[in-house]
């Protein structure tokens, strides 16, 4: 059984009289342990696809099986539970809570699954350590660099032992050197912890860190190929 199975996913937005088909019959399968980069122009539907994969958005038509579970008829709270247990998000703008320390930001997902306070703190510290931020636990986001903030966000995605990390342009706000650091972290997590990483990017040198590249255009998949390592 595949970890992620999309069958003829369609998403239609109505903008007044015009219907925009952001996704137009997307079918693909992603296995556990893959490292997939999704590429495409802006407006190609890649972000919409990520939102559907992340259970943040529901498709207009088609079927999305996550770990064998059909997500179509799940309630808001059931989707929230899936996001909490199976998915970790990394955003372009980091999306950390300001005025909240690094370790408390990382703790957040555990807060919503009812873990006791001490366990939350321990696991959050361990996650921060694994992304190389030991000693920065009590720093607030505005005291951290962009790369460090993104590492906090990655630690937050890791803390619940979610099998999938969804990263939407994770290096979009970072300089090249920092970007490479972040991508190497993803590669390491994918290799060492067998975490499935799916990332959206429009930069080919970022996509080159992945093992498989899916290209989107106008809501269709135009190519899907493995990356040849040099």
């Amino acid at each position: 059984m595949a970890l992620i199975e999309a069958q003829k996913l369609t998403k239609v937005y109505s903008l007044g009289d015009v219907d925009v088909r952001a996704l137009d019959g997307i079918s693909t399968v992603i296995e556990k342990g893959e490292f997939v980069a999704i590429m495409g122009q802006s407006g190609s539907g890649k972000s919409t696809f990520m939102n559907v994969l992340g259970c943040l958005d529901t498709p207009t038509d088609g079927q999305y099986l996550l770990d064998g579970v059909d997500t179509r008829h799940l309630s808001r709270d059931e989707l929230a539970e899936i996001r909490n247990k199976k998915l970790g998000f990394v955003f372009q703008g980091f999306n950390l809570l300001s005025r909240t320390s690094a370790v408390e930001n990382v703790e957040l997902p555990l807060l919503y699954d009812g873990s006791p306070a001490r366990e939350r703190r321990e696991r959050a510290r361990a996650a921060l350590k694994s992304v190389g931020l030991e000693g920065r636990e009590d720093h607030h986001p505005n005291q951290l660099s962009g790369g460090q903030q993104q590492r906090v966000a990655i630690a937050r995605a890791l803390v619940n032992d979610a099998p999938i990390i969804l990263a939407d342009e994770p290096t979009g706000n970072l300089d090249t050197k920092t970007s490479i650091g972040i991508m190497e972290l993803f590669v390491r997590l994918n290799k060492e912890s067998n975490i499935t990483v799916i990332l959206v990017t429009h930069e080919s040198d970022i996509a080159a860190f992945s093992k498989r590249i899916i290209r989107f255009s106008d809501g269709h998949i135009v190519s899907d190929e493995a990356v040849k390592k040099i």
Partner: protein
Amino acid sequence: MINIPSTFKISFRALRVNKMRSALTMLGIIIGVGAVIAMVAVGTGASRQIEAQISSMGSNLLIILPGATTSGGVRMGAGTQPTLSMGDAEAILKECPAVADVAPIHNGVGQVVYGHMNWSTGIVGTTPGVINVREWEFTAGRAFTQQDVKSATKVALLGQTVVDNLFGEQNPVGQSIRIKNVPFTVIGVLAKKGQSAQGQDQDDTILIPVTTAQKKLFGTQFPGMVRIIMVKAKSADNLASAEKQINELLRQRHHIGQKQDSDFTVRNLTQIMQAAEQSTKVMTMLLGAIASVSLLVGGIGIMNIMLVSVTERTREIGIRMAIGAKTWDIRLQFIIEALTLSLIGGIMGIIIGVSTSVILSNLSGWPTIVSPVSILLAFGFSGFIGIFFGFYPAYKASLLNPIDALRYE
């Protein structure tokens, strides 16, 4: 599963971030709760004072005053003509079923001497019925008896003020005093009643048998006549029927024709006092209601700030939803925030309300009573306001679409 302690922590942090705003929002609740408590304390104090006066006067009390003399067409006012007799008093007790007890009163003022001390006070000649009618208690000794009345014994019951002025710390029971140079034996001391509704010192009095007063002290042109008759009805419900029965009986005894005016007046003091008490209670409720309006306004203030807070933190809500916060996690976060605001405001309001009451009663001398019930009520009500006015913003927050919330700038 919802994690309440952590949710509280999140709420406290959010409130601490905007200290000024939180404080101003709380101010509405503080003023509201404080006003309710202080106003209700003033009202309760006033009605409690009236209640105390009613019970010191003796409950269910009727007073019968004699009629007016008419000399040469000039009417002289109630009490100028002695029309009430001891016989009237006895007949009222015997024949009016709604009456519990009577006390005919023949009184005057006299100089009282004990040893080298002397004092001028009101001397009330009456019957043992007065103890029941005026609801006197004793701190020492006993009341005089019907036998004392019959044989015009020279015995006296002293009010506390008289005891203080003549005896100081000494026990007066058994001592001999002279009233207008007539020697009396003190057989009892009356318990303190305090001021009457009219501001008179009710303890500045001496009770003696009515016959003694008539024969030995004041004399009278009209033997067997008394100044007034006090009547105690069997219960508050019986007051009106007692009044009616007394009117009928006395008109008949005094041979008053159908079209003639009565030569006496029955006054229902208790009723008058109860009307005053009732109006004080209405005033209390009115004050409380007006103060509640400010509490309501405070609640709306909380709702306003919570709505602003939800809008400001749309992105935070989106992040929380994305990483697994469920509908009630989000709702509780904002409800608890509103609840925290209103409860802290409520506690501070209670402190301010109680101290305002204390200051008011010290400055103006108004009696104020802060009842625990009003504190509990104010606290519960402010909690309710927090939940009530916090719910809509919380509900709004929980319905946000996670993607839209995440994209919100």
